């Protein structure tokens, strides 16, 4: 390293804000991914949200441990200790840290088990939606013409559907079967459209760039251009969308469970717990408040993290919800 380089390093400010790309290239080549990660690491909100998410994931993973510590199984009913003689659930106490529900089950333990479903459905459904949406969007953007028109119509139809109505209809049609699988497929089906639109827009502009022309003149085939030259350039957008889709999927799953769709009663699920709680909020505030807090903390953490990830990938871009025609 020459003296000149060292001087440069000393003078370079923290890589933050729009100038980051320039200063970074002056030191050494750092990929946009490294830059984004650096920015995220210095973002206090992002770190805090990540910690919350890890905590909740930890609760989900170690739910049996929590159950063992407090000595209450997720579905075990404690009619003697969990309910008053009149049959009213008891509030937060030494034995039931977050209170008991109407059947004398431990709310804390059920929240931990419920986290498993929320996180699983949230992540898997968003993953599916993003993957499917990205592939379809890329096909539409790159192939153009008939493929594009067909997909655009399809997406219009899907986005215009009253999705909850269809979820209810599908659930009945299946005779109340399907469980989590139904949740995941319904959520993925109604979420891929937006991703496909975003990716299509990106691909439309990328495919006119010179380097794509260069690749083609070198004899690269369609598949190679799509996966080697285009995918890395839309990946950042897709990841940003994924982080913002997870909380939406979690809310969606909870809403379905609230209406009695998807998971079936004895299974601990935040949505169905809150649905039951609706009948008991006058005698058991903890039944609403604690599962509600768990749900809200999770979605809030994911949304905050998603915002930060977006800002990290492109500090100028702060309008993910703006959809231009």
């Amino acid at each position: 390293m020459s003296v000149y380089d060292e001087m440069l390093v000393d003078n370079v400010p923290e890589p933050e804000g729009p100038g980051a790309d320039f200063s970074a290239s002056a030191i050494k080549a750092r990929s946009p991914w490294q830059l984004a990660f650096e920015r995220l690491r210095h973002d206090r909100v992002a770190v805090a949200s990540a910690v919350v998410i890890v905590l909740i994931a930890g609760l989900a993973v170690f739910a049996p441990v929590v159950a063992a510590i407090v000595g209450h199984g997720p579905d075990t009913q404690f009619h003697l200790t969990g309910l008053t003689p009149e049959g009213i659930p008891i509030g937060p106490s030494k034995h039931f840290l977050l209170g008991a529900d109407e059947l004398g089950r431990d709310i804390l333990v059920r929240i931990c088990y419920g986290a498993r479903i929320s996180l699983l459905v949230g992540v898997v459904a968003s993953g599916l939606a993003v993957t499917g949406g990205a592939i379809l969007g890329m096909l539409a953007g790159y192939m153009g013409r008939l493929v594009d028109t067909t997909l655009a119509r399809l997406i219009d139809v899907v986005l215009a559907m009253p999705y909850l109505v269809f979820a209810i209809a599908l659930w009945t049609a299946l005779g109340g079967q399907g469980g989590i699988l139904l949740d995941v497929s319904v959520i993925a089906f109604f979420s891929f459209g937006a991703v496909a639109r975003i990716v299509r827009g990106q691909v439309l502009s990328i495919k006119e760039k010179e380097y794509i022309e260069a690749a083609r003149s070198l004899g690269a085939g369609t598949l190679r251009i799509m996966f080697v030259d285009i995918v890395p350039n839309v990946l950042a957008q897709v990841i940003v969308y994924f982080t913002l889709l997870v909380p939406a999927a979690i809310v969606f799953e909870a809403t379905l469970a609230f209406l009695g769709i998807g998971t079936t009663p004895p299974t601990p699920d935040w949505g169905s717990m809150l649905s039951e709680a609706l009948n008991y909020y006058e005698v058991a505030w903890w039944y609403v408040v604690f599962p509600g807090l768990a749900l809200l903390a999770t979605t809030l953490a994911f949304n905050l993290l998603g915002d930060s990830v977006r800002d990290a990938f492109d500090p100028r871009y702060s309008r993910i919800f703006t959809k231009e025609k």
Partner: protein
Amino acid sequence: MWLVATVVFILYFVTPHDPARLIAGKDATAQMLADVRIRLGLDQPIIQQYFSYLGRLLQGNLGYSYFNSEPVSTIIGEDLPVTASLAVGGAVLWLVIGVLAGVLAATKPRSIADRTVTGLALFFYSMPTFLLGELFLLLLFFRLHLLGFDFFPGSGYVGLTQSVGGWFQHMILPWFTLALVTGAVYARLTRGSMLDVLGEDYVRTARAKGLSERRVVYRHALRAAITPVTTQFGIDLGTLLGGVIVTETVYGLPGLGQEIYNSISRQDLPVIIALVLLASAFVVTANIVVDAVYALLDPRVRLT
């Protein structure tokens, strides 16, 4: 619309169940079951059932409920006012709250007002509708009720024609429940698009002409900034219906949302199809209206 009706119809018949058994009850004899089937036309081949249904649909006959034999149109007529009050009031409130909050935040970027709006928007945006409804019930209805303050009723519906005040009182919590969650998205959207527009040259020109700040913001900037909001509103109409179902469930409002939920658990096909059709008709019509408004707001857009 036709597509939607057909899809629901097929979906209903590919699945194993027997509405006749459901209607006739558990102890029905084979003879009673057969009678019910003939009365409902369920004994005919599915294709024939489908075409006769489609034929009646075209004549505006929505059929009769399998459950209590009421005409579907009567059921819809009874429930529609509740749902319409909820949906229209909620949508107006969500647009007003969202757009005003967004403008407030954008005109003073990085101020306390901006931070408050952005923070609250994120909070409500992360909040599931049903949870907000339950928290409202717990805090604004029940806790206030315990304190002897009974302004917000917990559930039920009072017709607008019976008592305007009662109607308003019963609707105010459902409206806010519906509006705050979606309004949060609009606040973010308006803020972002307002910030862009306020940086445009013509806004500077308007200011240079000596127009008042209020006029610049609301007449010149907002008109351009609101177009993406209009687009989003068209997309969100499906969400509105979902929100209506959830909100009606939380507050026990006897509207179409409750009706569809009940009719599905009763496997009441004519009601299900009619309601799903109504929902799609609403989304399609509302989208046309949104497109028209879009052209009205933005002179660059032409209706073709």
